[in-house]
């Protein structure tokens, strides 16, 4: 037996390239390539020198890779301002979501209270609402509150519309932690708030991180409400600021895509980190 084991292992590592496996690998790689291709074109365009962008016919690759564009972009368009706006708005919205969602999720995961079903229904229904569908109502409300062209307006809207996902995902994480762990602390005189902070939250870190990243990215990527509510350059987030370049007389595609990639890359990395928790949260736990 002891002698047989290593050979078995070896067979497993060195899989034979059967026809089926070759087809599988090639189709897998083609799928990957298709879904990354628009971003490769973004990258290629972002390092083209200016004269080659408007050359006809378009060249597949730049004659010289102008990485210098990534330095120049900061002085050519107000990119830093857009990033600051996006970052501040997304961070504030995310913090508000966590501060409000954690207690709500904890309580509804631990207690059967009157109206619990109704509360969860409200959460689920509003998770399906998108700001796009309500943009006219949101705009009229923001006008009433005198919040047009402010960060606060966007922070409040993003916090409210992403509350549901966070409550939902946190609640399922909290519910999976055995109540016995807390009960011992309660007997020792700890309050519910204390057990939530000291015992539950540390155990539910993946859930909190997922809620944080998801909300942050949703706010970072949002477009319709930002387009409607912000008008001044120093309040515009990335999505609105960068696309406003398209409207200009001469579109600076290389800088537009340089900025876009700077905005996309960190978000993709964060998203990949929470990928395995997302599906359950987005489908109300019906698919896990």
């Amino acid at each position: 037996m002891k002698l047989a084991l290593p050979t078995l292992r070896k067979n497993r590592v060195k899989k034979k390239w059967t026809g089926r496996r070759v087809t599988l690998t090639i189709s897998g790689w083609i799928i990957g390539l298709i879904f990354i291709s628009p971003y490769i074109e973004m990258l290629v365009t972002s390092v083209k020198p200016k004269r080659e962008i408007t050359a006809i016919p378009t060249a597949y690759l730049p004659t010289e890779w102008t990485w210098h564009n990534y330095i120049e972009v900061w002085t050519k368009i107000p990119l830093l301002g857009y990033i600051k706006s996006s970052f501040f708005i997304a961070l504030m919205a995310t913090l508000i979501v966590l501060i409000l969602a954690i207690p709500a999720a904890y309580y509804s995961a631990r207690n059967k209270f009157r109206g619990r079903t109704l509360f969860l229904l409200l959460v689920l229904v509003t998770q399906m609402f998108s700001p796009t569908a309500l943009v006219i109502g949101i705009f009229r409300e923001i006008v009433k509150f005198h919040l047009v062209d402010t960060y606060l307006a966007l922070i409040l809207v993003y916090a409210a519309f992403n509350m549901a996902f966070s409550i939902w995902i946190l609640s399922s994480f909290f519910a999976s932690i055995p109540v016995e762990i807390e009960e011992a602390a309660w007997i020792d005189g700890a309050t519910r708030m204390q057990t939530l902070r000291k015992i539950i939250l540390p155990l539910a870190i993946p859930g909190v991180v997922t809620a944080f990243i998801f909300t942050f990215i949703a706010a970072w990527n949002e477009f319709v409400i930002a387009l409607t509510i912000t008008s001044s350059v120093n309040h515009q987030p990335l999505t609105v600021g960068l696309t406003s370049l398209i409207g200009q007389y001469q579109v600076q595609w290389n800088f537009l895509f340089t900025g876009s990639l700077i905005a996309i890359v960190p978000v993709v990395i964060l998203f990949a980190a929470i990928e395995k928790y997302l599906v359950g949260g987005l489908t109300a736990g019906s698919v896990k």
Partner: protein
Amino acid sequence: MATTKLRKSKFGALPWIGPAILMIFVMVLWPAIEMIRTSFQNVNSTGKVVGWSGITNYKDLMHNPDLPSIMVRTLLWVVIVTFFTIIISLPAAQILHQKFPGRRLVRYALIVPWAASVVMTSTSWKWILDGYYGILNRILTDLHIISEPVDWLGTPNQAFIWLIVVAVFVSVPFTSYVILAGLTTVPDDILEASSIDGANPWTRYRFIIFPLLRPALLVSAVINLINVFNSFPIIWIMTTGGPGYATDTTTTLAYKISFRDQNIGQSASMATINFGIILIFILIFLKVSKWKEATE
């Protein structure tokens, strides 16, 4: 059990869930009510309400000569995009479920369109499809598929087809991941038993895997219907609903009527109809997601 009872505050659930509910009421439900109310009001172009107007806004909207074709297009948009999204996601998920060298990388590649801002993805596609400088014209010319550059987004039918392509492109990643999650629930022993019984891969897929995937498929289909119906950035960035109204859906039309034509009352009536349709989709979602079981 006694300890939990002891620790219940006299305010009950309110201090815990109240703030979140308040936030949802003020920033989500209030705008919804405000929008529905506005649809029955007469609003002048500066945004001032000058009185109730009954159903005049709805009547005026129905007299919009472009509306019938936009409604048909919206239906096509939602159905075609959702259909192709699922048709492509099913085999994609099946492939990503198998082991092959580089699978992790391919999975990460599929995440990119899901995580990246749809606005920026659409901008890239707009550039790829550009009539003068776009790479697509170059590729198709080199392959001798077209003899001269085509203005893809400038001709109504071509533009609509490309919008559908991009909408499917951004919807497939999420859908594939939902189906992938569904595939992991298919028990291995059932599959092994069936292959011992001599089931070929296709019958195995048709009669064992596919039925088990039904919940994942239904849920992702309804979520896609809602997302695609609400989809705004793709159309707005690539064509702004143009040329004319040739690629508008009821969602972009509602936006155009209020923020370009300054006709807020009429726009609110369009948006209210859209909202009603979304509510119907949500009811279907509640039905197929069996959410109550998940909350128990």
